[in-house]
């Protein structure tokens, strides 16, 4: 932590990239300001409670990381700081209970499905979540979509070009099972053998994000033995999972299984990155031109540097016209607690994003993260606009269907 703080030379280049600084225009709500606050808390010049609102207001979008010339690992800093504070933070009883529910429910699809269906827990859950999942819970559909089971092994169609395993994730498979389904179908159709280990599950990122490090490690460990060793990659369709798994090295530092964790994280690849490297097999494309906006998920663009890959895939589709929007790298505000803790900021970011998108008049919006997808749908609902919002796997699947 000290090294990361020390690396910051206070140059201010991060301010331009930070959504909360852009919106609020205060140093405390900028990356360098937050780093300075963390420094002052650690040096005991400032109480942690005073600094907390500003740290909580950080979206964790990581836009400041590529913007930083000094190479401050802001993400690592934030995760470590949150975990450190979490140990010392005394939460009000209700808050603490809701947090426990989150930890015990979200990472487990069966429990979550049950909780979501009864709907009884959802309110309690949303109150505690400082991340993208809270917004989704808040927006739980009246009825959950039926599960779309994927067979344990899907053989490659035609000549085999690769062999992967699919990381099922947690919340997404309950709320939007069609995403992994489309991804698996598409990969198989493109000559990739897809394994779906029945015992695999949540990667722990959601727990890491709320500072529950120990529980995150426990959940993550369960995956280490589930995947075949000879796959080319373990594929995730959620930007948040990929980015969280990248942090395993930090999460498991000086912990048992550190080596396995690193090995595992090195195997994990985002869906778009893998497929872009492989290339699509002669996609059929669309009959009529389809104007598409690709909404960058922060955890893919900033945390995993994936700018060109998803665009390259979309550009391979005949009759798909890819449109670029203003401020494409700015977070859409889906960082969940925003809708509850900071409704004004979240709404403003969502509004700005949807305005930039609608300005280029797309027929469909595509993203690579369920958090963004949900946020954009909410914004469109507000405007009464029926524009579809799809996961990139879904539109590619549509375009490749014969």
């Amino acid at each position, binding site marked *: *932590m*000290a*090294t990361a703080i*020390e*690396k*910051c*030379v*206070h*140059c*201010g*280049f991060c*301010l*331009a990239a930070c959504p909360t600084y852009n919106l609020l*225009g*205060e*140093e*405390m709500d*900028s990356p*360098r*300001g937050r780093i*300075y*606050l963390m420094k*002052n808390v*650690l*040096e*005991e*010049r*400032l109480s942690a409670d*005073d*600094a907390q609102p*500003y740290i909580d207001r950080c979206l964790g979008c990581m836009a400041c990381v590529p913007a*930083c*010339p*000094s*190479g*401050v690992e802001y993400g690592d800093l934030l995760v470590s700081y949150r975990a450190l504070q979490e140990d010392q933070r005394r939460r009000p009883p209700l808050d603490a209970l809701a947090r426990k529910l989150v930890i015990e429910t979200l990472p487990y699809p069966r429990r979550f499905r049950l909780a979501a269906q009864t709907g009884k827990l959802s309110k309690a859950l949303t109150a505690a979540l400082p991340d993208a999942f809270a917004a989704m819970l808040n927006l739980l559909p009246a009825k959950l979509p039926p599960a779309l089971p994927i067979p344990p092994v899907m053989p490659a169609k035609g000549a085999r070009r690769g062999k992967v395993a699919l990381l099922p994730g947690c919340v997404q498979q309950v709320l939007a099972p069609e995403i992994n389904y489309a991804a698996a179908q598409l990969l198989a159709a493109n000559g990739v053998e897809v394994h779906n280990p029945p015992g695999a599950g949540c990667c722990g990122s959601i727990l890491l994000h709320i500072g529950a490090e120990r529980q995150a490690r426990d959940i993550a460990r369960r995956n280490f033995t589930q995947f075949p060793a000879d796959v080319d990659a373990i594929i995730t369709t959620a930007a948040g999972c990929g980015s969280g798994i990248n942090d395993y090295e930090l999460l498991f530092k000086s912990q048992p299984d550190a080596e396995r964790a690193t090995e595992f994280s090195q195997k994990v690849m985002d869906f778009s990155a893998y497929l872009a490297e492989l290339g699509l097999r002669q996609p059929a494309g669309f009959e009529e031109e389809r104007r598409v906006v690709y909404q960058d998920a922060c955890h893919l663009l900033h945390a995993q540097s994936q700018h060109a890959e998803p665009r390259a895939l979309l550009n391979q589709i005949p009759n798909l016209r890819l449109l670029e929007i203003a401020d494409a790298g700015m977070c859409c505000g889906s960082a969940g607690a925003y809708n509850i803790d900071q409704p004004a900021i979240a709404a403003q970011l969502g509004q700005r994003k949807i305005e930039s998108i609608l300005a280029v008049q797309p027929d469909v919006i595509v993203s690579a993260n369920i958090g963004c997808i949900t946020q954009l749908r909410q914004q469109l609902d507000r405007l009464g606009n029926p524009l579809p919002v799809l996961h990139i796997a879904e539109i590619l699947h549509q375009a490749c269907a014969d």
Partner: protein
Amino acid sequence: MMNRGILQALQKIYPADRLLTRDVELLPYESDALTAFNAKPGAVVLPVNEEEIIDTVRLCHQLALPFVARGSGTSLSGGSLPIPEGLTIGLNRLNRIKKIDPLQRIAVVEPGVINLHITEAAQPYGLYYAPDPSSQSICTIGGNIAFNSGGAHCLKYGMTSNHVLAMKVVLADGTVTRFGGESVDGVGIGPDLVGLFVGSEGLFGIALEITVRLMPQPELYQTVLAAYDDLGRAGDAVSMVVASGLLPGAMEIMDRLAIKAAEASVSAGYPDAEALLIVELEGEALQVEAEFEQLLGIIEKSSAIEVRVAQNEEERTRIWKGRKGAFSAVGRLSPDYIVQDGVVPRSRLGEALVEIGALKDKYQLDVANVFHAGDGNLHPLILYDGREAGALERAEALAGEILALCISLGGSITGEHGIGMEKRDYLPAMFSEEEIDIMEGLRRAIDPNEIANRGKMFPGGEAPALSQHGVHPLERAGLISRE
């Protein structure tokens, strides 16, 4: 804590969420981009319109309360360092571009507008705003005016002062007035008051509305990167280009250490060399093409070990990104550093570099060199470790010797970062007593209470504390380590 009466007066102008007084709100404003100094302001206010600024300055004048205007806080000379217990006026929310007039080729902007945003707004009309400080993606036009900011391309187009046509300002005594006019030709009668205000380091007041000149976007760029196995040879190449009569848009040199930092930061793919020279030609296509041939001929004769030409906009951007992020990238090489800013006549560039090399050995500190070679503007970055006893003092002494060297070679103690907090003690080395008297007289004529950016530019005055570095409390407790 600020005096209750002053706070009550400020509360009449600002709602609670734009009048910052708690420690947690003030600490992040303690420093700008020169972290060697910090000072906690008594309060920070965040006006959203010019009336609030005027009311605030008038209040400060009335109460003799010192204030500093602050944009994005990117000054490298401590120009926007708060005055202890004074007022910091954050102008970043005044960020509207009020007008772009493509026929007159002007833009009218508020002081908190980010430099690059003017270019972005002018782009659809084929125009841009020329001064390009390295921090252009975040620094504000108000700060650019205060410090007459330059940038890599000022070699050809001049500094901020060459691009500001008119201003509405509130002077430190509360007077609101206009300087200059919208005519691009700069036809004017009487003294050049715009010229007086630009570069005055915030001592005269605050610019409320600024009219800047826009330039037609160059039709063509040719960006050449030449590598040398000796820093002096890169310097000689600059002299050769200048002697040939060419006037490139920019000529920049980076030495080995700076290359290493920039490479670590943006992977610009720079060649492995002792020095890199970046030369950029820009303008009308026909002319640039002819100049390009001439330039390549010169570079060929300059004993470059490798020459690369940017083949597309992406390659050009990457070359510049490495250069523009070089200062901050040095944070990767050293826990602390001082960015120095001095000028030498460009014919004596080689001499200056040899001397700096000798000083480096004398003080046993590393120095990375990044400079606007075309106009002799040096930016040595002095690397030190603040945790080592006496290191900061040695670094400062070295920085001082570099400035003395610049003066002795016939140059200046600042090219573009300004005097600010950092160099106020060097002012007498550069200017005579009479000259400083004139400057102080001018200041007092406008600001009798000396409230605007008090403590900057002129030597002496209340000095905020130098930052102290030491073992981190958590380190002492064995909770963290520096691996």
